[in-house]
């Protein structure tokens, strides 16, 4: 059977799926999309993924979309090693964590990512018309781009709220590990919630935000160290998959810039 993945090196949702593929020991064919050239908004790609986002998995010709759905699908068709609890209640707990991950930290990490890297990289030098035309083509998340704006970026209130949401996520990971005894979020078993939170925390770490958790959340900090020691981490984060490697010049704090 053939697995193909339409993805981007540095997209956190692509990274979620790559970690899952690595945990399952699966081979897959890579199709890298470039956002800068609008590869995700072409008519051909929108046929596979009407939301115009990455990733999309193609399994024997059938497209599967939404990173949370893809990882659950992979866990169903390749049950070993299992990344979901065996009992219905455990699965419900996994799924309520997954819904929280989608609603809270996934959109939150976009705010500093766009403010600090993607907005200056892609939109600042576009005209207002080009920016609005690009946003108008997006099937999802138009309001996100309009709130950001081409020049102003997200407000301080939006940034503060995003950081508070990441802090809440880290506190919940820390509390979960204390309650379950760890080493993983749901206890003994490494599951899809550990998989899908990893790229979000890694993105924040890569942008220099470890002070959000390191001083006072020791269980969460130790969890992230264990995550990074798994072979799947290095497989998913191959060279140039972190923003600091690809767009490091954008991450230098204003006060430390030479120019």
């Amino acid at each position, binding site marked *: 059977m053939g697995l193909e993945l339409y993805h981007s090196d540095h997209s956190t949702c692509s990274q979620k799926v790559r970690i899952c593929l690595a945990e399952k020991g699966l081979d897959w064919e890579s199709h890298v999309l470039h956002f800068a050239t609008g590869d995700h908004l072409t008519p051909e790609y929108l046929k596979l993924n*009407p*939301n115009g986002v990455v990733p999309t998995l193609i*399994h024997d010709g*059938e497209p*599967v*979309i*939404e990173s*949370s*759905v*893809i990882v*659950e*699908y992979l866990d*169903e*068709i390749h049950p070993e090693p299992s990344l979901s609890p065996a009992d*219905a*209640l455990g*699965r*419900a707990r996994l*799924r*309520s964590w*997954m*819904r*929280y991950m*989608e*609603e*809270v930290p996934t959109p939150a990490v976009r705010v500093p990512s766009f403010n600090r890297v993607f907005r200056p990289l892609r939109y600042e030098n576009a005209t207002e018309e080009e920016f609005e035309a690009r946003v108008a083509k997006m*099937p*999802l998340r*138009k*309001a996100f781009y*309009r709130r950001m704006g081409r020049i102003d970026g997200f407000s301080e*209130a*939006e940034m503060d*709220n995003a950081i*508070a949401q990441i802090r*809440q996520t880290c506190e*919940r990971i820390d509390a979960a590990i204390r309650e379950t005894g760890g080493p993983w979020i749901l206890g003994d078993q490494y599951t899809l919630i550990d998989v899908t939170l990893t790229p979000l925390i890694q993105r924040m770490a890569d942008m220099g935000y470890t002070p959000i958790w390191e001083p006072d959340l020791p269980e969460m900090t130790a969890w992230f160290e264990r995550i990074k020691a798994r072979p799947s981490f290095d497989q998913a984060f191959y060279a140039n998959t972190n923003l600091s490697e690809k767009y490091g010049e954008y991450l230098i704090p204003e006060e430390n810039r030479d120019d």
Partner: protein
Amino acid sequence: MTIELYQSHHSTCSQKVRITLAEKGLPEKDKDWIAHEINLGKFEHLTPEYLKINPNGVVPTMIHDGAVLIESSAIVEYLDEIIPENPLTPEDPVARAGMRAWMRYIEEVPTVAVRVPTFANMLAPARYLKYSDDEFASHADRLPLRKRFYQRMTQKGFGEADVNYAKEQIRQTCERIDRAVEGHGGPWIMGDRFTLADALVASLIDRMDDLGYAYLWEGELPGMEAWLAALQDRPSFRACFYPGARISERYPEVYRTAREIEAERGY
């Protein structure tokens, strides 16, 4: 088996679970399952006792034989797993992934979008207009989730750009239902089986209908309208929307149709 549901009559996420309970053979409130009504207007979802069972401070929360379950999408999948009769999930893994992609879309797009006219047209006049700026800010601060939603809103609800974008998102949802029904041959989103995708989107479309926004789909999307007629004809729909379950019934003193509001407000 004992099922208790901490819920609110008119909350769309409570309705998602109620329609699923009815589909799984548990239609009657206070007979097949025990209801604990949470009065959102009195902020009973933010008490320390409630936050202990639901740290997100939202409804619904389900208690099944003592086990606590949160998040409506996770609750409905759980119900479908523990009660295997009348399955609401496709057996084929690709179709199941298709249903779950619909569930993620419903959570990200229409679930969020319907809150905008709900707050702008109903909850702002019913609850928030009388708040001072400080009172409103401290209310938003108490919420474990969705603070920014409240902060962006103010006491008056949302402005024109937000309301128009919400309508665009609901229209997109209706168009996608229409295409799915036509593409899979209907009568349901995934084809001949009523699934969790139908159960989750039902209350959102009903809310828009209740607020007077049926003009977003009427006369233009025959597949979606046939789906809605079939949905409204289902016993689970009637069980879910018992008398008093709609927001127009909860706040009749402030209720006006979307068209009436638009004539005055301009959007």
